[in-house]
C-alpha cells in the first residue's frame, strides 16, 4: 500500500528544494553530485532504480533530513510546522466542542416560565451554519471574482506560522538562516497557498464538527435530565399549516428513515405548541411542547454535523489529491533524475600552454629563388617511394630543367630506414647536386627533416641541395604544387634544421600551374 505523504514531509521536501535553489554554491553540478551520492550510498540502488518517482523522493527526503540535521543541528521546519498545525487543529476542535457545549447550555437554560423558542434555535445554530457552508461552496468562485491568489485568512495563517518557525530555525549560521527564512516564506504562500489550504480547511471542519457534537450532546443531556418545553411564536402571519409544511420539507432527509411521527412534529403538535403571550402557556399540553426536540436534534445532525463531516472527507480527499499534484512539480522530478543519472565527466586536466614564441607559419612567402639564370647542373633526385613512378619522375625532370637541374639519376627514399641509411652512405662527399622531393601536403615529421639534414651534411660544399615541395597529387596531376600554408610550414621546419637549401617550388608557382 502506498504510504501517504504527510504535511511535514512535503514541507521539508519543498523547503530543502528551495534551499538548494537559493544557496549560492548550489550549482546544478554540485546538486547532481550530492544527490547521486545519496543514491550510491543508499545501498538500495537496485530497489530505487525500479521504484517510483515518489519512492525515490521519500528516500531522498529521509537522507536530506539527516544531512540538514547534522549541518544545522536542528531538524527541518516540517515536523515543527506539522506539530503546530496539529496543535492548532486540536485547539480548534476543543474550542468548537466547548463553544457548542456552552452555547447549548445557555440555550437550554429553561426556567419553566416560557418554552424554548425553536426559531431561536434555528436562528443561532442552524441558519448561520447553513450560510457558512454555502459560503464555503461558493468560495472558489468568489476568489476568482476578486482575482485574489490567497485568501486573507490563509495569508495571516502563513505569516503566523512563518514567524513561529523562524524563531525555531534561528541558528548561529546566518546564511542558512536567511535562505531558510526565504525558502519558508515562499513555500507557505506560493501556488496560492496550496500547502496550507486544505489542512486549514480540515481544521475548520473539525472545529465545526466539534461544535455540533458539543451542541448535540448538550441537547441530549438536557432532554434526558430535565423537563424541557419547546414552542414557537411569531408576529408574522404564518399559520401552523405553513410551519408544518416547512418542517416537513426540512425533515425530508431523515423522515423517510424514521417515519413521520418520530421525525418531526405533526400539525396538531405544531398548533399545540404555539405560544401566544396573552394566553400564556398553561393551556399547552406537554406532549406538544416536547414534540420538537427530535426534529431539532435531527436538524442539527443533518444541517450542521453531516455537511461538515462530508466537507471534512472532501477536504481530506482534496488534500491528498493536491499533495500528489504538488509532488508532480518539475523541481521534484529533477531530484529523482539527479539521483538516478550517473555523474559523467570526460574532461581532461587543463592543458599546459605551449610556448607560442615560434615564428608563425603565416609569414609572407619569400620571393621565388633562381631569379637569375643558373648554369645547368646534373642532379640526383631523391623521390619518396610513394611517388616513384614514371609519370612523376618525368614531370619532375621537366619541371627542374628550366631551373638549372638536369636530373641524371633518381632514387626512391623513405621505403625503409636501412635503405635510406645506405643511400646516405652512397652520397657522402658527392659533388653532384641533389634534389630532395618532399610531399608537403603531409605533416613534416622529424624522420624526413633529419634525413634532409643528413643529406646536407654529407654533400661537399660545392654541391647544391635543392628541395622540391609538392602538393597533394591526384591521378591527373601527379606533380602538384603545395598549398601556400603547407609550403610555409615546411620551409620553416627545413630552415630550422639546415641552411643553404634551395627551394625549387613555390606556392605562387602552384597557383600559376593550377590556373
Amino acid at each position: 500500500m502506498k504510504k501517504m505523504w504527510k504535511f511535514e514531509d512535503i514541507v521539508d521536501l519543498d523547503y530543502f528544494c528551495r534551499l538548494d535553489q537559493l544557496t549560492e554554491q548550489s550549482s546544478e553540478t554540485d546538486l547532481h553530485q550530492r544527490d547521486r551520492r545519496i543514491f550510491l550510498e543508499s545501498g538500495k540502488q537496485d530497489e530505487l532504480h525500479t521504484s517510483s518517482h515518489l519512492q525515490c523522493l521519500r528516500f531522498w527526503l529521509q537522507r536530506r533530513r539527516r544531512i540538514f540535521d547534522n549541518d544545522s543541528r536542528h531538524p527541518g521546519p516540517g515536523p515543527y510546522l506539522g506539530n503546530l498545525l496539529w496543535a492548532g487543529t486540536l485547539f480548534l476542535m476543543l474550542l468548537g466542542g466547548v463553544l457548542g457545549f456552552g452555547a447549548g447550555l445557555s440555550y437550554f437554560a429553561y426556567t419553566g416560565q416560557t418554552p424554548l423558542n425553536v426559531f431561536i434555535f434555528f436562528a443561532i445554530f442552524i441558519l448561520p451554519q447553513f450560510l457558512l457552508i454555502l459560503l464555503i461552496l461558493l468560495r472558489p468562485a468568489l476568489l476568482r471574482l476578486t482575482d485574489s491568489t490567497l485568501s486573507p485568512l490563509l495569508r495571516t495563517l502563513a505569516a503566523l506560522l512563518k514567524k513561529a518557525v523562524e524563531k525555531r530555525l534561528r541558528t548561529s549560521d546566518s546564511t542558512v538562516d536567511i535562505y531558510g527564512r526565504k525558502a519558508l516564506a515562499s513555500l507557505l504562500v506560493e501556488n496560492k497557498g496550496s500547502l496550507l489550504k486544505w489542512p486549514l480547511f480540515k481544521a475548520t471542519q473539525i472545529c465545526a464538527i466539534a461544535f455540533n457534537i458539543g451542541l448535540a450532546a448538550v441537547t441530549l443531556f438536557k432532554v434526558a435530565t430535565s423537563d424541557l418545553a419547546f414552542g414557537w411564536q411569531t408576529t408574522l402571519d404564518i399559520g401552523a399549516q405553513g410551519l408544518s409544511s416547512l418542517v416537513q420539507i426540512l425533515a425530508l432527509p431523515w423522515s423517510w428513515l424514521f417515519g413521520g411521527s418520530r421525525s418531526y412534529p405533526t400539525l396538531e403538535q405544531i398548533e399545540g405548541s404555539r405560544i401566544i403571550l396573552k394566553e400564556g402557556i398553561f393551556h399547552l399540553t406537554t406532549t406538544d411542547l416536547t414534540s420538537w426536540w427530535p426534529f431539532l436534534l435531527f436538524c442539527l445532525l443533518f444541517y450542521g454535523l453531516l455537511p461538515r463531516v462530508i466537507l471534512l472527507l472532501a477536504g481530506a480527499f482534496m488534500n491528498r489529491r493536491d499533495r500528489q499534484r504538488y509532488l508532480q512539480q518539475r523541481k521534484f522530478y529533477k531530484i529523482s533524475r539527479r539521483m538516478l543519472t550517473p555523474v559523467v565527466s570526460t574532461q581532461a586536466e587543463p592543458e599546459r600552454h605551449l610556448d607560442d614564441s615560434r615564428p608563425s607559419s603565416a609569414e609572407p612567402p619569400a620571393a621565388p629563388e633562381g631569379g637569375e639564370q643558373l648554369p645547368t647542373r646534373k642532379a640526383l633526385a631523391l623521390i619518396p617511394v610513394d611517388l616513384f613512378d614514371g609519370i612523376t619522375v618525368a614531370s619532375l625532370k621537366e619541371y627542374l630543367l628550366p631551373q638549372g637541374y638536369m636530373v641524371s639519376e633518381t632514387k626512391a627514399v623513405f621505403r625503409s630506414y636501412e635503405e635510406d641509411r645506405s643511400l646516405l652512405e652512397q652520397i657522402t662527399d658527392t659533388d653532384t647536386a641533389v634534389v630532395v622531393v618532399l610531399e608537403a601536403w603531409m605533416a613534416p615529421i622529424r624522420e624526413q627533416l633529419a634525413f634532409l639534414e643528413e643529406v646536407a651534411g654529407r654533400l661537399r660544399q660545392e654541391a647544391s641541395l635543392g628541395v622540391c615541395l609538392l602538393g597533394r597529387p591526384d591521378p591527373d596531376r601527379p606533380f602538384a604544387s603545395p598549398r601556400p600554408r603547407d609550403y610555409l610550414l615546411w620551409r620553416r621546419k627545413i630552415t630550422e634544421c639546415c641552411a643553404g637549401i634551395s627551394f625549387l617550388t613555390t606556392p605562387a608557382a602552384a597557383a600559376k600551374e593550377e590556373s
Partner: protein
Amino acid sequence: MLRRYIVFNHAGGSSKGRVMIPEFAILGHPNEGKSSVLSTLTEDDSVRVSEEPGETVKCRTFPVIIDNREIIRFTDTPGFQNPTRMLSEMQKYSQTSEDPLQSFYRRYHDDEDLRHDCELLRPLLRGAGILYVADGSRPLRHVDLAEMEILRLTGKPRMAILNCKGDQEKYAQQWKTQFRRHFNSSRIFNAHQAGYRQRIMLLEALKSIEQDWQEALDYVVTAFEDDWQNRNHRTAEFICDLLTDCLRLKMEKKVAPETSLGPAKEELFRRYTSELVRLENRCHRRMRKLFKHNVFDYRLPSHSILRQDLFADETWQFLGLGRSQLAVAGGAGGAALAAGLDLAAGGASLGLFTSLGGALGALGAVYGSRNIASKIKVLGIGTAAVKLQIGPNTNPQFPFIVLDRALLYYSHITTWAHGRRDYDVPLPESSATALTRTLPRSSLKAIGHYFRLLQKNGFDVEEAEERFKKLVIRQLNVISGAEEHEGNNFH
C-alpha cells in the same frame, strides 16, 4: 526511463594484482585529427586542435569518470615522428624473444630524436589499447604502413578509425584494405560531424577489440546514454521555462495624460520585444552550456532562420504551424476564432495585445509588427497618468514559433562536434522548416492545451507540462539520433 545499473568493479584485465583501468591511446601520423577525434568523443572543446601539425607533444589523459570513479580513459598522444626507424628497430627486437615495445622504449627513451615516439608508446606500456586515427581523404603512404606495422608488433588490442577530413572518403577503401591486415576492427568516425549516435557506436565498437574491457565499456555506454537523456530532459525544461516566461510576459507603462501616446507605445513595444529576445537568448545559452560548448559561439548558417529576429517576417513565414494545424492546436470552434487563425497563419501576426482578445485579437493579425504598437491596451485613464499595457501574448502561433526556434537551436548545438574548430565555416542547414509542422493531431492538441494553460497563467499546469515535456524529449531524441525516427516525430 529507469535503467538498471550493474555494480561495476574493475575486475577484468588486472595485472600483477593491481586494478587496471581500460585505457585507449589515440595514435597516428601527425595532423590526422587525433585530437579532434578525442575532443568529439569526450565532448571536450578545450582540447588543442590545430591545423599546425605536432601540436600535441605530451600525452594527455581524458579520464571517463562516472560517479567519481574512473572507468576508462582515453589518452591523446603525439604523432609518429620516426615511423620507419621505429619499425626497423622493433622488427629487430621481434626477431629475437624480446618484447619490441618494451625493448624499444628501454633503449631509446632518452634519445632526443625519438622523444615523441617514446612518449606515444608510454600508454601502450601501461597496457592501453590502440585507436589508430587516419585521414581517409588522403592517399596511403609508406610511413602509414610503417606505423600500422609498429602497432601490430606491439600486440595490443587495436582498432583503426578513419577520420575523413572535409567529408571526403576518396581513399577510404585503400585504407580499409590495410586496416583489415593490421587491426582487430575499423570504423569511420568523422570528428567534425559525429554526433551523439556516432559516439555511442564508436564506444560500442571498442568492445570488440578486447573482451576484458567489455564490462567497463558497457557501463560507460549506459552512463553516456543516461547522461544524454538527462540533458534532453533539462533542455525540455529550459524550453518550458522559455515558453512560460514568454507567454506570461507583460509590461506596463504610465504616461502623463497630456502626453502623446504614440512614442510611449513604441517604446513599450520595443522593451517588450527586446525582453522576449533576451529570454530566448538565455535559453540558448543554457542549452549551449549543457552540451558543453564552452569555447565558442558558433556561427549559424547564413540562411538559418535563427539568424532572423524572433519577429521577422521570415520567421513567421517558415516556422510555426500551418493554418489547419493552428485550428487543431487552438482547440476552439467558432467562426470568429477560425477567421482569426486564418489571418494569424497568413501574415506576420503578433496579436500581442490583451485588449484585442478573441476574434478582435485575431483580426489584429492584419497589422504588421510596425503597426502593432498602436494596439497597446490603455488600461485606464486616471487623473495623474494613463496606464499602458502590452502582453501577455495570446497569439496561438507565437508559442509554436518559439518552440520551433528552440528545437532548431538544439539541432545546431548537438550537430556541432566538439572537435570542430572551423568556426568561420557555417553548418549546413537542410531547410528552414518548422519541426512542429510534423505534429500529429493528438500531439498538437496536447501542446495547444499546455500553451493555453500557460497563457491563462493557470496553476494546474503540471500534468500538461509533463505531457508536453515528453513530446519535446521525444523530438530531441529524434533530432540527436538517440531515438529512431518513425514517421511522425511526436507521438
